[in-house]
C-alpha cells in the first residue's frame, strides 16, 4: 500500500518558499487569531479542550498533556510557571529546531494560549546552548510580539499579563529531563530531582507548581484551541491523536522531517515510500524508531500478539515494515515512539560499533548523580570501545548485559533506562554479532564510516 499524504499541521509552513519567521509574515497567515479567540474563553474550557483532544507529549514519554495540566497544584497560592522544553537533545531528533528557526511565532502563540489556560504569568523557553541562532530568533520574535502587545502586560486589553524569557542551556543532554531542566533554570547543575516529592506540577521551579511542555506539544495546543479537542481526535488514531513529526536520519535516500497523522503510516511506508528506501546496493538492517534510547528493531524479525481494535481484541503478526508509527503500537512491540527520531542503519553497519557510538554519548551525558548510571554508562562505553579498538572477547556480550541490567529502576531519573535500553536491545536482537565480534574482527575490512 502506498504511503498516505503528509498531514502538515505543525509544519504547515516549514520550508515554504517566501515564508519568513517575522511577525508580519505570521500575521499575514492568520497568526495570533486563535490566541485572541482563546483569551475570550474561560481558561478551564481550554484545559478541557486539551484533555478532550487526547494530546500526548511529543518530547519522548508521550504523557497526556491534559492530565499533566490537571495535576497542577492551583490551591497553593504560589505562582504557576510554564517552561517550554526546547532542549531538543535526543540523538535523531531535529523537529523543534525547524519550528524555532522557521516558525517561532507558532510556538509563542501556543505557549501564550497554554499560559492563559493555566493562569501562568511567567514562562521561560529553555533552549539548548547549541542553538545560538534559535535563541536569537526567539528573542526577536518575543520582542516583536511584546511590541504588538501580544505578550507582556494587559495583552490586547484582556487584563491578562504574561511574560516570556528565553534561557539558554550549555550543552548538557540531561537538561531535557524536566526536573534536571528546572534545576538548571535555577542556576544549578542539572541534577534531576527525586519524585516524589518533587513532581513539577506541585514542587517545580522555585518550589512552585510548574508545567514543562515540549515545543511541538505547545504548538499542537494552538491547533487544538483552534479546531476544538473533539475535532482534533479525528486526526490520527484513537489514543494516538493528532499528527506526529518523524525525523528520519542515517541510511535512507531521503532523510528529513515528515509530518503524518499519528498511526496512519507504517514504518515500512515511511522508510521505503517517503524516504526512498535504502542506499543503492544496500539493504536495511536495523532501525531505532524514537530517539537513540529507544530499543532497536531488527529487519526480518516478527512481532506477534493481541491488540485492541475498537472494542475487540485481534491478533497481529507484524514485520518491522508493518508497524504503525504511533505511541501504542511501538510500545506494544517493546520499543517506543519517543521523540520521533528514526535512525536507520543498513547492512554496512556493525552493531558493536553502532552501540559503542551510542554508549559514548550516554556516558558523556550522565549527570553523575546516581552511581549505577554514572558507573554503568561509563563501563558500557569502555567495554564496547575496547571491543572495537582493543581486544574483543566472547564473554563481553554477557558482561555488557550484566552491567546494563543493573541500571534501570535504580536511578533518580529515566536516564538510567535511556542508557541501558540500547545495550539491552542490541544484545537481545544482535547477540550473535557481539559474541562473534572477536572472530569477525580478524578478517573484516575497516569500516567506510567509523562509528567510534
Amino acid at each position, binding site marked *: 500500500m502506498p504511503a498516505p499524504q503528509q498531514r502538515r499541521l505543525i509544519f504547515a509552513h516549514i520550508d515554504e518558499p517566501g515564508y519568513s519567521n517575522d511577525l508580519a509574515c505570521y500575521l499575514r497567515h492568520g497568526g495570533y487569531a486563535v490566541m485572541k479567540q482563546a483569551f475570550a474563553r474561560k481558561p478551564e474550557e481550554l484545559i478541557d479542550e486539551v484533555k478532550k483532544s487526547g494530546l500526548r507529549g511529543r518530547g519522548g514519554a508521550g504523557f497526556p498533556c491534559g492530565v499533566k495540566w490537571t495535576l497542577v497544584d492551583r490551591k497553593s497560592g504560589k505562582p504557576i510557571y510554564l517552561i517550554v522544553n526546547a532542549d531538543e537533545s535526543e*540523538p535523531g531528533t531535529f523537529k523543534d*529546531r525547524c519550528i524555532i528557526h522557521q516558525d517561532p511565532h507558532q510556538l509563542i502563540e501556543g505557549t501564550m494560549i497554554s499560559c492563559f489556560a493555566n493562569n501562568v504569568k511567567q514562562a521561560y523557553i529553555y533552549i539548548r546552548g547549541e542553538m545560538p*541562532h534559535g535563541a536569537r530568533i526567539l528573542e526577536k520574535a518575543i520582542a516583536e510580539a511584546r511590541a504588538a502587545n501580544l505578550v507582556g502586560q494587559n495583552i490586547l486589553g484582556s487584563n491578562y499579563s504574561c511574560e516570556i524569557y528565553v534561557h539558554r542551556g*550549555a550543552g548538557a*543532554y540531561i537538561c531535557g529531563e524536566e526536573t534536571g531542566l528546572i534545576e538548571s533554570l535555577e542556576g544549578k547543575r542539572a541534577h534531576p530531582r527525586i519524585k516524589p516529592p518533587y513532581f513539577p506540577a506541585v514542587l517545580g521551579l522555585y518550589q512552585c507548581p510548574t508545567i514543562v511542555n515540549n515545543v511541538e506539544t505547545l504548538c499542537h495546543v494552538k491547533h487544538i484551541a483552534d479546531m476544538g479537542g473533539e475535532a482534533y481526535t479525528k486526526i490520527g488514531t484513537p489514543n494516538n491523536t493528532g499528527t506526529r513529526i518523524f525525523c528520519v536520519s*542515517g541510511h535512507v535516500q531521503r532523510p528529513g522531517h515528515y509530518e503524518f497523522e499519528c498511526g496512519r503510516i507504517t514504518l515500512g511506508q515511511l522508510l521505503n515510500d517517503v524516504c526512498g528506501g535504502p542506499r543503492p546496493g544496500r539493504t536495511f538492517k536495523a532501525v531505532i524508531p524514537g530517539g537513540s534510547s529507544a530499543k532497536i528493531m531488527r529487519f526480518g524479525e516478527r512481532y506477534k500478539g493481541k491488540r485492541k481494535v475498537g472494542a475487540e481484541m485481534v491478533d497481529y503478526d507484524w514485520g518491522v515494515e508493518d508497524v504503525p508509527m504511533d505511541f501504542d503500537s511501538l510500545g506494544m512491540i517493546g520499543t517506543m515512539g519517543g521523540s520521533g527520531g528514526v535512525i536507520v542503519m543498513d547492512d554496512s553497519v556493525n552493531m558493536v560499533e553502532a552501540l559503542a557510538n*551510542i554508549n559514548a554519548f550516554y556516558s558523556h551525558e550522565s549527570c553523575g548523580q546516581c552511581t549505577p548510571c554514572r558507573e554503568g554508562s561509563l563501563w558500557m562505553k569502555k567495554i564496547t570501545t575496547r571491543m572495537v579498538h582493543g581486544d574483543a572477547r566472547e564473554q563481553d556480550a554477557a558482561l555488557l548485559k550484566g552491567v546494563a541490567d543493573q541500571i534501570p529502576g535504580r536511578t533518580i531519573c529515566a536516564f538510567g533506562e535511556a542508557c541501558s535500553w540500547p545495550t539491552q536491545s542490541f544484545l537481545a536482537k544482535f547477540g550473535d554479532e557481539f559474541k562473534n565480534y572477536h572472530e569477525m574482527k580478524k578478517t573484516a575490512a575497516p569500516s567506510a564510516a567509523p562509528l567510534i
Partner: protein
Amino acid sequence: MNLKPATLQQIDEVITHYPVKRSAALPLLHLVQEDAGWISPEAMEWIAQKLGLQPINVYELVTFYPMFRQKPIGRRHIKVCRTLSCALTGGYKVCEQFQREFGCHTGGVSADGEVTVDFVECLASCGTGPVVMIDDDLHEKVDAAKVKALSDQIRTAASGRPAP
C-alpha cells in the same frame, strides 16, 4: 574584570528576568564567555559576587556544562558532531580531516592560534549529517570537499585580519 560596557548592560538586564538571582548564573557565564572567550577563575568570582553566591556555586557549573571553557581556545571554534546519525554518514572522517587541515588534536589550539577543533555530542540536525558548527553557524552534509572549502574560508579570513 574587564568586560565591554554592552556586556555589562546585558548582564544587568538579564538578572531582572528571574525572581531569584541565582537563575542568571548560566546567562552570565554565556555573556562573559562571549565577551572574554573563556571563563577565568577571576570571572567565576566576579559572577558569584554579582549574584550573591559562593565561587564554588559558579565553578561547579563551569565543570558540569560542556560549553563552558576554563582556558582560551582558537579564534575560530569548529565543532563536529560525533553522535550516531552523523557518524553513520561520515562524521569521524570529517573531524579527522579538520584536524589534519589545521594540525591540531581534539580540544587543542592550532599553532597559529587560529582554530580549535572539538568533537561534540548531537547538534540536533541529524537529517543533514554530518553536521559541523563553526562558531555560531551550522554547516550541513559536510563531505571532504566541503571540509576543504570551509578550511580555506577560515584561512582566508585569518590572512585578511591585521597582524596583532
